[in-house]
Structure formats: structure tokens, C-alpha cells
């Protein structure tokens, strides 16, 4: 799904494939893509043909190539946006698709683009991060980061070019890719990502190599104004209705507190008066995070058409977004989403967990992740307590490949195998936002049966020791992990 965008027709096709070729559901991933876990091998050509009928494919979703370009799920509607990043995502999507030179790289390669002050695309943890920025002459261009990544060796990306003129976007990417293709390690796949090349070469030398290459090609691969404008015409604003003022929810909120709660937690301010973006929670208590049934997908397609110009977006936190919903429609949309179990008001809370398929589906996993998520959900069933705890990101991966980004979770949970038994390492203080950080290990791994209690204890330490208005992450950064360590290992 290019930059996580899906239209309602495509959404119905995903439902159809889930129904006819899989076990009636699909899984939304942190890559803003979709996984089917049970298709029969001999039916894959039929699935691909069905996808192609709605302009979808599975090209470059695997292998050592450039993968799906990801971005902010609020692109084009976010209030803090400098410029809509989607035209640049599309330019990169086109350039990366079937690129003849860079399809057999040392390892996979991921590019993310952000157009906002608040980085909602985890660009600091991508092989290349592209940030729209304004320079001292008030021109908009790109800050380019390189060498970020998660997985076995989480590394925060470094700025390789503070300001790149728009016209040079592709030539600069090409220069980075060529240097990586030629010099990236091919002797050990665990050391083959660009982050290792940047680390071993040193940023200064790597930058010099890229610049030297770039000087040779920068004038041969220019993005001219006409091309940029042409691409931008595909991302025009939908036909918004004019509203003089924001909708007054005070009466509805008083009559229906549950709606008010959902409105507060699962909707986001929009740059157009009278509209909000809605986050559909794929984190209902009894469902594996990111999973949707065929019936839910059909319903989402209908609701998207009815309420949000037929467009659905996926987020890297494994939820969906309707980006353009009239505030006046929110109550009826909420009722419809509730009926589909898509309105759990837990966005941004401790049960909005990123979770990989883990041992249940994945051949790489060392430990289960879905079961742990369910246990945490069961233990945190008090919504008022969840909302009181506020913004807490828990990420759970079933192995050190880290598909669920556990190293950048405020609380990270990593499944490890110890002599055939599932254990879990806990980390605190990670973040994939602007204040990017790798979580610090709390202590020795804990046994499976103790994980949930450890999480409850961590949250309890926060609840009892936080300063006023202090978020979980801020407190961890202030006090360090010691108070948490003390309590978790005292009770374990």
C-alpha cells in the first residue's frame, strides 16, 4: 500500500481475498502494508491477479530491495504540516519501483517521509528519512537522514544533508543507494543494512562518498517544477464543505460520555474547520493487534465512502485512519464503528500495542507476542485508569528481528528463547518520535507468566511517582530506570 493509502474498492478486494483465499482476516503491519498469513501457495497467482484488478501488487514487499515508502497517516490534513509529503512519497514510489540498478542490494531498504513538525513516520529509524523543512531563506526542501533502523541493531539515523533542494531529491537518493549498493557488506546479512555501513565508515566519510557520487549525477536527474506540479495534482484536497466554525459537541458529550471519550482519544484535529481525522482502533481487547476480518473490511469500505471520501489510511502503529470526516458526522460514525468493534477509545494508551504475529504465525519468532498482548489487555481493562496513564506506547516483538519496534517502545517487550522456554526482555524509554531514543534494558529477562505483572508494576510506579502532567516517557527520562527496576525485580 503506497504510503499506507487504500481506497474503498481496494479495501473490498482485501476483504474478498481474506474471505476466499485466507482464513477470513488479514493483518496490518508497521510498514503500512497488509499481510495474509494463510494463503495456499498454488493460489498466490490468483491472489496477485485479483490485486492487480484494483491496481495493487506485492512487488518489493520482500527481498533486498527498496520497500514501500511510508509516511505520516495524517499527511495532507495535519495542522502542524509544512507541506503535504504524499507527492514526494509518490515520486519516490515511482523511482523505487522496479529500479533496475537497486533491486539486489546488500539488504532491504526503507524510506520514510515526514512533512510535519511532529514526526509521525518514525523517519529517524529508516534507512533514509526525508523531512520537509524550511531553510533560512524560507525555501522548502528536505533534511535527509541516513542509517537509522531497528531490528537486531537499533540505530538512530543521522543527518547527512541538512537541506536539499527539492529538484535534487532523486539524484541524492540515487547517490546514497549507489554507494550502499557498492560498499554495503555482503558477507554477513546481519551486518548488511546501511546503518552498519554508515557506522563502520563514519558519517563524515560516508557523506563525502555520497557527495562525490552526487556531484556526478545531480544535474542529470532533476525534478523540475512541472513534474512536481503534475504529481501534486493527484493529491488535491477533497471537496470539503465550508464550515464557519467548529462543531459544538458539548451537548452530545454530556448525553453520551462514551462518545466524548472516543472523540478525545480517537480523533485528531484537522487543518480544515469542521473536520477531524478519525483513528479506527485495531486494538480491540480480544483481537490480535492489527487484525481485521473480511466483514470488518467491507464495513470499513462502506464507512469510508459514506464519511471520508472513500479513502482509508494505515498507520505504522497498526491502526487505520479516516482522514477527512465532518465533525457533524462523527457521532453516527462512532456508532457504526462501535458496532464493528473499531471504536475502542485506546489510541495512544497502553493497550494501543504494536505487536508482531510472533510465535503464532511467524517462522522466525522465538516467543509469542499476541498472547502477551491479550494478557496486558485483560489486566488493563479499566479505561479510566488507561486514560489517566495517558500516552504510553508498548511494543511487543516475538524475536530480535524487532518487527514490532520494541526497541523504540516507551515500554518494549522482546521475546527470547532460553532452552526452549519463552522469556521476555523489557526495555524502557524508547521513542520513535522527534525525541528518538532506544529503550534501556530494565534487567534480566522475565518469565512469560511474570510479564504482565511486570508491566502493571511499571505502570504503577509511574502512576504513583509522576510529577503533575508528566508523561510516562518524560518521567522515565527524568528518573531513569532504577525506580522501575527496583519494583519489578522485587516482585518478580
Amino acid at each position, binding site marked *: 500500500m503506497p504510503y499506507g493509502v487504500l481506497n474503498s474498492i481496494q479495501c473490498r478486494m482485501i476483504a474478498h481475498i481474506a474471505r476466499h483465499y485466507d482464513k477470513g482476516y488479514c493483518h496490518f503491519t508497521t510498514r503500512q502494508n497488509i499481510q495474509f498469513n494463510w494463503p495456499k501457495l498454488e493460489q498466490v497467482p490468483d491472489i496477485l491477479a485479483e490485486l492487480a484488478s484494483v491496481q495493487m501488487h506485492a512487488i518489493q514487499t520482500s527481498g533486498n530491495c527498496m520497500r514501500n515508502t511510508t509516511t505520516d497517516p495524517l499527511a495532507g490534513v495535519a495542522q502542524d504540516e509544512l507541506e503535504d509529503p504524499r507527492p514526494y512519497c509518490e515520486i519516490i514510489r515511482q523511482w523505487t519501483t522496479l529500479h*533496475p540498478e537497486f533491486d539486489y542490494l546488500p539488504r532491504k531498504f526503507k524510506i520514510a517521509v515526514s512533512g510535519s513538525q511532529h514526526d509521525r513516520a518514525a523517519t529517524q529509524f529508516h534507512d533514509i528519512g526525508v523531512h520537509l523543512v524550511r531553510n533560512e531563506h524560507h525555501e522548502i526542501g528536505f533534511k535527509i537522514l541516513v542509517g537509522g533502523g531497528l531490528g537486531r541493531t537499533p540505530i538512530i539515523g543521522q543527518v547527512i544533508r541538512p537541506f536539499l533542494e527539492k529538484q535534487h531529491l532523486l539524484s541524492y537518493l540515487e547517490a546514497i543507494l549507489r554507494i550502499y549498493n557498492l560498499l554495503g557488506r555482503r558477507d554477513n546479512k546481519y551486518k548488511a543494512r546501511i546503518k552498519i555501513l554508515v557506522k563502520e565508515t563514519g558519517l563524515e566519510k560516508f557523506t563525502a562518498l555520497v557527495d562525490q557520487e552526487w556531484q556526478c549525477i545531480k544535474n542529470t536527474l532533476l525534478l523540475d517544477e512541472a513534474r512536481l506540479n503534475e504529481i501534486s495534482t493527484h493529491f488535491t484536497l477533497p471537496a470539503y464543505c465550508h464550515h464557519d466554525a467548529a462543531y459544538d459537541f458539548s451537548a452530545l458529550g454530556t448525553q453520551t460520555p462514551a462518545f466524548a471519550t472516543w472523540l478525545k482519544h480517537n480523533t485528531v484535529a484537522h487543518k480544515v474547520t469542521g473536520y477531524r481525522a478519525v483513528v479506527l482502533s485495531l486494538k480491540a481487547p480480544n483481537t490480535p493487534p492489527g487484525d481485521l476480518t473480511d466483514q470488518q473490511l467491507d464495513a470499513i469500505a462502506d464507512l469510508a465512502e459514506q464519511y471520508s471520501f472513500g479513502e482509508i489510511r494505515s498507520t505504522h502503529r497498526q491502526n487505520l485512519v479516516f482522514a477527512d470526516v465532518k465533525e457533524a458526522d462523527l457521532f453516527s460514525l462512532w456508532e457504526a464503528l462501535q458496532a464493528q468493534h473499531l471504536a475502542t477509545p485506546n489510541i495512544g494508551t497502553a493497550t494501543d500495542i504494536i505487536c508482531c504475529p510472533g510465535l503464532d504465525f511467524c517462522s522466525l519468532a522465538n516467543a509469542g507476542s499476541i498472547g502477551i498482548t491479550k494478557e496486558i489487555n485483560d489486566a488493563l481493562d479499566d479505561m479510566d485508569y488507561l486514560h489517566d496513564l495517558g500516552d504510553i506506547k508498548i511494543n511487543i516483538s516475538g524475536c530480535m528481528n524487532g518487527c514490532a519496534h520494541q526497541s523504540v517502545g516507551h515500554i518494549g517487550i522482546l521475546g527470547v528463547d532460553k532452552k526452549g522456554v519463552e522469556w521476555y526482555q523489557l526495555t524502557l524509554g524508547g521513542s520513535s518520535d522527534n525525541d528518538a531514543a532506544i529503550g534501556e534494558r530494565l534487567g534480566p529477562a522475565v518469565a512469560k507468566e511474570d510479564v504482565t505483572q511486570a508491566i502493571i508494576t511499571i505502570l504503577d510506579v509511574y502512576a504513583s511517582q509522576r510529577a503533575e502532567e508528566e508523561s510516562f516517557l518524560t518521567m522515565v527520562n527524568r528518573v531513569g530506570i532504577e525506580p522501575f527496576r527496583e519494583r519489578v525485580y522485587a516482585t518478580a
Partner: protein
Amino acid sequence: MQLLKNNEIIENTWQYLAIDQVITNGDILISAQRWQQEKTSLTTHTGQLGIRLLASDQLADIVDALPHVAVIDLYITDFTDGRSFSQAWLLRHRYQFKGEIRASGDYLSDQVCYLARVGVNAFQPNNGCNVKKEINYLNDFSVHYQ
């Protein structure tokens, strides 16, 4: 032995001579290492000269050979090693090499189209592969963005 060159099947007149084999007259391919060691005598070779380039070889080591050679043979030992693709691109675009760039060895049929797009104009598949089939792969994709 045949190869596909510029969309035509032709007989391969080239012989690769390993570093311990005596240089003979005729069209010969030698390693980048041998070029480095014997470049003075090789420039007076009777017959055409070509260099077999491994993915691990440095282009910088053979740049001075380009005026003297008719063929650069990108010898692919592992189809996943994409350095050959950048080598081909650089030879054509950076070094303006006008001679034959050949792909040989263990490349995949699926890679023929990509190799052609980065500048390869001759294909010599491994023994047992039908060189005639390579023609069909040249245009696997009728459109492209780049």
C-alpha cells in the same frame, strides 16, 4: 557456445584465460588482477582484449584498461550480489564505455531486463541454459519509471 548480443544470437569467439594460463592470440578475457599485473604487455596483444569483472572487483582498478578493451564481462557468481548492476551503470554512464558489456555466469533470467537497462548488451548464460530464451526476457517490462 553462443551468446546474445544486441538482440542477436552470435558465436562466442572469446576465451577466458585464468591467471596461470599462457596468453594466446585471439579474443581473450582476463581478470582485473591480471590487467593490473600485465597491462604493459597486454596492450600489445594480438587479438581483442576483454576483462572479466567480478562483483568484488573495483572499477577503479580497470578504468585505465577501458581504451584497450572491447568487452567487459560482468561475471556473476551469485545472483543476489547486485554490485554488477552498479558496475554496468557506471561503465556506461560515468566512464562512457562504448564496447560490449556482457553478463555471464549465474544471473537469473528475471534479471536480464534489469541488466539490459543498466547498460549490459550481451548475455552469456551458464552452460545448459538456452541463450535463445534470453531474448524473451529483454522486454519483461514494457514500461518503467526511471
